[in-house]
């Protein structure tokens, strides 16, 4: 049954820093910066203005577009400003609502627990939307959209993604140990929303305690099973997970898991959905792993969305030694930051600080054509040729070699013995190709 996927690499896990550190709540932030774009899709418009008093869980930004998710106040207090602030994923200032906390944590009137048991799929999906749920694994795709497949795309299988294949990150791992019941509840609600009768929880075998916890919780649950996956990066990528567990091949972009009858959701997202019903509170906090050799006391923190990185880093003892790289997310796909003055957003699974003394990179040397990038590509691409074309700006050639299918998982750059920036070059080609396709589409309509 476990067929595995093509390629992949085995980076060191580096999870020991935090895998045994229980989740604890971060200090209450005095100020939160809540960007109005925290998801893939249409940006939100602010629904509050400077000087407004807001309560915890109150909508502060929303959009009417289908592919979007509202954002909520994570503290109670006064709106200090609505202005562009540096965004950790987009790398540029993006409109954000800045709230000064009054320290009262006063809940908004609309917050009330709901029983998910007797809700219809439509009502569940509506709650996913109003709770501002997005995929918490990192991609931040609006959950309500994912759970609304068109009628011609029947879904027969639901996978709960607990692979957490990025090195260093342990947020999902800890949540599986400490929020087992909530994850299971959320998963059941998700299955009901899809109308599927069986679900599978997928966990890599480097988390035996999480596997055991989930298996114990599912012992008397016939319609949910737990599978142990042989640890290999990027198993947590939806396409690779579906291949590993179900041996189904998701078509290349714009193909989606629903094209092969599958919906995949992260364990943290299921947990958040369960909380959204239990407490009625929308997505205003998440677990963030603050870790890395340049962090003094690595930890898994439950963090209010909008809390600034530097507060969390200080809370973890500050930088230790010479911090040279600050990354949002894991080391394989995470986004490098140039400032600690950026907020935690819904997609922030980790804050990672790497030290200068560790050799994380190195100067690129001549390609020796060893072909390792080809061997490890989970999409069966030929990174060596695509990147060579991209470097010469021969984007048509790169497109013919399926550059647009690239996941940007980073396996090729990771394995390259000549330290060549393969993903970087392919990403460039990919952006160029996507822009051209968009232009062509715009021209034809």
């Amino acid at each position, binding site marked *: 049954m476990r067929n595995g996927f093509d390629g992949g690499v085995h980076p060191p896990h580096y999870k020991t820093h935090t895998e045994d550190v229980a989740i604890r709540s971060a200090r209450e932030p005095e100020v939160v910066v809540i960007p109005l774009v925290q998801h893939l899709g249409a940006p939100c418009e602010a629904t509050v203005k400077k000087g407004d008093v807001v309560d915890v869980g109150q909508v502060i930004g929303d959009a009417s577009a289908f592919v979007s998710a509202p954002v909520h106040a994570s503290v109670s207090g006064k709106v200090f400003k609505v202005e562009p602030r540096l965004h950790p994923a987009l790398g540029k200032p993006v409109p954000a609502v800045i709230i000064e906390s009054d320290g009262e944590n006063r809940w908004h009137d609309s917050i009330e627990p709901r029983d998910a048991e007797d809700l219809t799929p439509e009502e569940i999906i509506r709650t996913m939307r109003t709770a501002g749920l997005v995929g918490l694994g990192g991609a931040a795709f609006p959950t309500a959209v994912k759970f609304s497949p068109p009628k011609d795309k029947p879904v027969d299988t639901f996978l709960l993604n607990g692979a957490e294949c990025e090195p260093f990150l342990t947020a999902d791992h800890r949540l599986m140990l400490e929020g087992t019941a909530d994850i299971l509840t959320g998963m059941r609600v998700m299955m009901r929303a899809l109308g599927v009768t069986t679900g599978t929880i997928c966990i890599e075998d480097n988390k035996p305690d999480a596997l055991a916890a989930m298996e114990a919780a599912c012992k008397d649950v016939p319609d949910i099973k737990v599978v142990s996956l042989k640890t290999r990066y990027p198993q947590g990528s939806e396409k690779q997970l579906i291949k590993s567990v179900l041996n189904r*091949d998701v078509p290349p972009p714009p193909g989606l898991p629903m094209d092969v009858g599958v919906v995949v959701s992260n364990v943290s997202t299921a947990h958040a959905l369960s909380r959204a019903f239990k407490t009625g509170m929308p997505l205003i906090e998440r677990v963030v792993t603050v870790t890395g050799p340049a962090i003094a006391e690595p930890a898994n923190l439950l963090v209010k969305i909008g809390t600034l990185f530097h507060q969390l880093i200080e809370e973890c003892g500050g930088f230790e030694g010479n911090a040279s790289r600050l990354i949002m997310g894991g080391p394989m796909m995470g986004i*490098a930051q140039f400032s*600690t003055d950026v907020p935690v957003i819904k997609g922030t699974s980790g804050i990672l600080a790497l030290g200068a003394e560790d050799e994380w990179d190195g100067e690129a040397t001549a390609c*020796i054509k060893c*072909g390792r990038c*080809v061997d490890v590509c989970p999409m069966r691409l030929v990174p060596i040729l695509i990147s060579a074309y991209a470097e010469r700006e021969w984007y048509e050639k790169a497109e013919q070699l399926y550059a647009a299918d690239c996941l*940007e998982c980073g396996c090729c750059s990771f394995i390259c013995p000549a330290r060549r920036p393969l993903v970087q070059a392919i990403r460039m080609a990919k952006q160029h190709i996507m822009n051209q396709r968009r232009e062509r589409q715009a021209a034809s309509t």
Partner: protein
Amino acid sequence: MTDYKFVVGSSPHLRTSENTPRLMFYVLQALFLVAVASTILFGVRAMAIIGVSVLAALAAEALWQKGLRQPVTVADGSAAITGLLIAFNMPPLVPLWVPALGSAFAVIVVKQFFGGLGHNFMNPAAAGRAFLVSAWPLAMTSGWLTPFDGATSATPLQVLGGSSGSLPEGWQMLMGWRAGCIGETSALVILIGGLYLIYRQVIDWKIPASFIGTVALFAWVFGGTDGWFTGDVLTHVLSGGLLLGAFFMATDYVTSPVTKRGRLIMGLGCGLLTALIRLWGGYPEGVTYAILLMNVATPLIDRMTIPRPFGTRQTKVTG
């Protein structure tokens, strides 16, 4: 916290610890075993050939790069590998200037002329050997000795090709107790070195397996004197430069395909050409030319074997 300056780079922010010099070091480890074996078999003469050849390769690269004011890359180990492989392809009685010249030619003309490591289109050692064979055929195809006793003798492939002499026993062939180039005879040691590189994931098993397999098949079917399917497979596989070429020269990264299917084709092609030359060609040995021809075909093989990307297979939905 504002005084920190962070490096902002593209993901991934983590790299494997294996780099080019490390991979070359693994190859050098394997080749060192072969060098020890050839010194045991052919004595001081082997040591001298190896020393001269490696020094010439290193000096040629350093001088060339110094002269052109390029960074000197001798430390990456690739020139040393070329020097060792040239040495291994020498008859024991070869004059010492021959390997020196061959190494210099391989490094400068075959590698540096085309842009240095990663840019050559033929394996430098194989091309260097081919150059020497065509320029000084006598020095390169005579001077064979039996190990230890130092008596002149014909090589097994010459015997198979009709020269007078007797074939060594199978175990003698395996241990390298036969006439031949100094580094090609010790089959067992080459095998150990090759398997070590496969274990270290430095080389892909597909090239040596399909190369040796194809030669073995052809030798068995067509190599016999009593009709089809009577060939002496073991002698063919263990003689000449087949093992050395299959494990250490055909697997050269730069000049072999990067795709999985391409590597199989590389091995098959090398095997086919080697068998053709050995069984029906004018030379007793064809490994060098087979590898060179397949080197030249490598870019074409790569382009013809681009895999279909993930997701192009049709999947049925049951729901």
